[in-house]
């Protein structure tokens, strides 16, 4: 019996050593150690062993079983390692092939621009508003201190609607977002801290003008608002939108609905404000180190009066800039023809 057990062990050792894969090992396990295997078969002969020897043989059988199981497990693990070590070859894929992408949509540049501008002003407590794009002359011009013969009110500058003239004048396609000024002031809630972003329309179509474009209009009216605040807000915007290293300056300008009026310049991001390009020649992007950002000014007392706000009590500032220009300046994008923004060529749109 003892010999038979030892022989069995030897047989298992040889079989395991010869096994080439997991399936063969499986068969060995079943054949020798399984419920109906040879070890079990041998142990059936235990009945014929003397009671005296029985515990000894039993212990031996158990020891051999454990040893065989150990052998098989060790071999199995060895075979698995060998198989895994070969994965680089057996399961090799060309990983330079493209992946499977989730659907890829695209927001229009203007949406991105509007989002960024809105967020920038939200941080200092300006609330985005919406006012009509088709409005009365009164809000677009008259209440903004623009005389009836002002060039902007000529029919070759502004789109007029085919509609009867009302008490508020002609119906126009807003040529700027400034129609929001008196409309917002008329709410009579102070302080006014508004950022109005909307479509605007002017009768111009060439490489640098689109008949429909976007503007953002800021308006801040409260007690004791001075030029220092206008400088602060515009400087904050320039630095957070374009970069902390950019500088701004105000230059005198002329608009009817602000007094004083300014043009805001920002230091050129290409030449660093030096006006001298990398090639030691004049910077081609800017004018003497500065780029024009847009117009601004202290709200004209006549505009406050038009909205029934007492200019002796309240003062404020306003600015209104083109979204397209401002955003393209930020991204340093040179779009040769601004109309490309509204041509909706998918080759263009899918780049953003």
């Amino acid at each position: 019996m003892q010999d038979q057990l030892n022989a069995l062990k030897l047989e298992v050792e040889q079989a395991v050593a010869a096994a080439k894969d997991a399936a063969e090992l499986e068969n060995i396990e079943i054949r020798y150690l399984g419920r109906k295997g040879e070890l079990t078969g041998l142990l059936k002969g235990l009945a014929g062993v003397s009671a005296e020897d029985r515990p000894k043989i039993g212990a031996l059988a158990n020891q051999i079983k454990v040893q065989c199981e150990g052998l098989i497990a060790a071999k199995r693990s060895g075979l698995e390692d060998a198989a895994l070590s070969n994965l680089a070859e057996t399961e090799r894929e060309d990983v330079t092939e493209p992946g499977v992408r989730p659907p890829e949509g695209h927001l229009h540049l203007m949406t991105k621009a509007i989002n960024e501008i809105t967020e920038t002003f939200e941080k200092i407590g300006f609330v985005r508003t919406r006012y009509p794009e088709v409005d009365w002359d009164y809000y677009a011009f008259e209440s903004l201190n623009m005389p009836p013969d002002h060039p902007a009110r000529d029919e070759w500058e502004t789109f007029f609607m085919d509609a009867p003239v009302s008490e508020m004048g002609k119906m126009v396609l807003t040529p700027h977002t400034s129609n929001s000024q008196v409309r917002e002031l008329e709410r009579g809630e102070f302080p006014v801290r508004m950022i109005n972003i909307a479509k605007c329309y002017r009768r111009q179509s060439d490489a640098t003008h689109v008949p429909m474009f976007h503007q953002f209009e800021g308006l801040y009216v409260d007690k004791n608002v001075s030029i220092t605040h206008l400088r602060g807000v515009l400087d904050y915007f320039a630095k957070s939108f374009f970069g902390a290293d950019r500088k701004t300056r105000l230059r005198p300008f002329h608009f009817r609905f602000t007094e004083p009026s300014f043009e805001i310049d920002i230091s050129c991001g290409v030449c660093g404000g030096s006006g001298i390009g990398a090639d030691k020649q004049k910077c081609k992007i800017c004018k003497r180190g500065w780029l024009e950002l847009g117009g601004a000014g202290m709200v004209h007392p006549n505009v406050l009066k038009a909205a029934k706000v007492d200019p002796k009590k309240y003062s404020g500032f306003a600015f209104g800039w083109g979204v397209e220009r401002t955003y393209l300046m930020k991204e340093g994008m040179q779009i040769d023809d601004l109309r490309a923004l509204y041509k909706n060529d998918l080759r263009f749109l899918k780049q953003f």
Partner: protein
Amino acid sequence: MNSLVSYDWLSEYVDLKGVTPDEFARRMSLSGPAVEKIHPQGADLEKVVVGHVLEVNPHPNADKLRIAVVDLGKEKAQIVCGGSNLKADQWVTVALIGSKVRWHGEGDPITLEPIEIRGVKSDGMICAANEIGLFDAFPHAEREILDLGATFGWNVGAGSPRPGRGNRAPTPGSPLADVLGLSDDVVMDIEVTSNRVDAMGMVGMAREAAAILKKDFLFNSSPTPPLKLRGGAGGGVKVTVSAKKQCGRYMAAKIEGVTVAPSPWWLKRRLLSAGIRPINNIVDISNFVMLEMAQPIHTFDAATLDGGIDVRLSRVGEKMNALDGKEYAFDDTVLLIADQSKPIAIAGVMGAENTGVMSNTKDVVIEVATFDPVVIRRGARKVNLQSDAQLRFEKGPSTEACPEALARAVELILELAGGKLVGPATDVRQGTYKPLKYSVTTDEVTSLIGVKLAQKEMVDTLRRLGFQIKTTGKKITAIVPWWRDHDIEDGRDLIEEIARVYGYGAIPAVVPFDLAPRPMDPELAWEKHVRDLSAGAGLTEIYSYSFVSKDLLAKAGYDAAGMLHVQNPLTSDFEVMRTTLLPSLLQVASENRERFAEQQLFEVANVYYPTGEGWTTLPDEQLELGALFVGMTDPWRHAKGYVEFLLNEMGIREYTWKRLSGDAFWHPGRSVQVFANGKLLATVGEISPKIAQAFKLDRVALVDMPLETWIELATAAKSYVPVSNFPEAKRDLAIVVDHHVEFDDIARAAVRIGAQNTLPVKTSAEWFDTYRGKNLPEGKKSVAMHLTFASQERTLESAEVDALMEKITLTLKEHFEAEVRG
């Protein structure tokens, strides 16, 4: 409007000693007109010198070429030259090796290199004026070189060749730029705002500079001899002003016996620096005075005028040939200067061709006037003609600018063209001039600027700008100088003057942080969300014009008649304010179809609905979303899936879908609408093949969503249904039904069976396939779905699920004649 300002010229009116052009540019830009560019003068004339021709010898190999020996001071040069007027003892311009010239005045400048011409070495080039960019100053015939001696009457003095400064020739070898007085000059390109016509002249610009830079203003406005004026029609020229409203002042003077000739260099040089081409002394003087004083001037040949001058509006059908050689026809709104028989000028814009000053003109009439800026602007626009004069007139120069400008013009003509002033000048004006007067308090100034300034500083600034000031306590009263009577409109404008001269750069920046006064309009917040969701779902956003053409609308089956029209559209492409985004989407898809077979597009924009009859009220601007799907299988399914996705993401849970038919725009079998609370949320589906075809598109599906209702119903709040603790049972079911039977009804029936079970079973049906065709009878379809059964109370026994399946198939058979497909 931008002005070109010569630094050298400007220095005649303001003391700029010790101020570099760069410093001038920086300081002026912060307080006044912005200097945008600085162009050094004479830079193009580097290595171009004056030479004296010593001898001229024939060229051995060419008849038309000769060899000049030229004294260049330190050396003598041998130069091959083809100039027809070349001769010995001539003063010429020599371009040395390394200089830049234009061959025969054409093409880009090239750098001169040592060269052999027909076998003879040439140490440079004797230039024609057009080869060194001076043709406008010194016009010449072809092949004629620039003869400096003849041009300047040398022996001519070096340095600034102005009349009366000697006629000695310069030292040979002197740089030409020095001789022409250009070396130290720069021309500044300065932006002058439209309200400051005064600063469009040298004198006005100098006044600005004097105030801003705190330098002396040198201009002296007393001409010699002083000009005698006569009001009304009694002067040397008979003038009637019929159009009184349109002409505030008309002055005229007559000078007899002038000699029309080219202007001297100093005058030509001033005009050239401002980009104006010299013509002859009389015309040049008009332009010079305009550049100097920002007051346009016109001169007529007196002999061409028929009787006295009348300033009147045009008559319908009247015509005139202007100085630009073109004919202009008028309606009855253009302001004209006329004599007794014909128009002699479009007032403030351009003179008539046949009344202009010519080389043989003997007597001239000088016109200096002020016109209504609006009439000038509209008139110029109407006849489509622009001029330097008109650009200034439409900005409204003061009536008080006229006498000074006229006196200056007379002074210069007498000096440069000779002749004799006939009688006093005529001066016809409307009303009398009363200077404007405004006041402001120091407190108002301080509170608007946000910086405390001394009253003395405020007063000093205003005085330097020409205001006459009186102070009473904190009150500053200012009389506005005439040259500012157009732009100073109230006390507030005085604050601007003080602030800008103080310097905007010196005002500190303070950010007024605060909380937003109110939350953002939910429409704006949801609009952003919808856009983000759409792009996230794989759609590409487009922006199309709010105004579209009638043709585009018609192509998509819309009638533009009820829509708001633009009265003055740029072109018929931009004529109608759209009430729908769909035609634009179709157009965009159509334009992209050849490059992109598959497209998923969306746009969010306002559309413009009528609010009543006849557009007496503003249109109702409604925010809408449109989307388009083309190129995939069953595009309508993608369109619907997109809307389902949006419904889910925007938290809208209660809605019903209803088949849409009977709308010519939409495909009658493949369109559906979704409603909530009885309001339309979206129309979704394929469009009629006819319309798709019109846009050259194959099957195309659209989504039309009025966002107002969505935003009303949208919610960010989430609700929660407990998940069952017991496993769900899943079965698949495929049934064959008539193709009119709809899945929604099948699913509802199945769900009902589960709900009505003794032990309520939550049942859901998930569609996964519909099949028509082979192996199925005509008019039938096979619909396949996953059914899921779950109880909140316990695990369902297999037999229970079998029983439910049995009930469901029976019910479906009963209601829809459904056969279970094996």
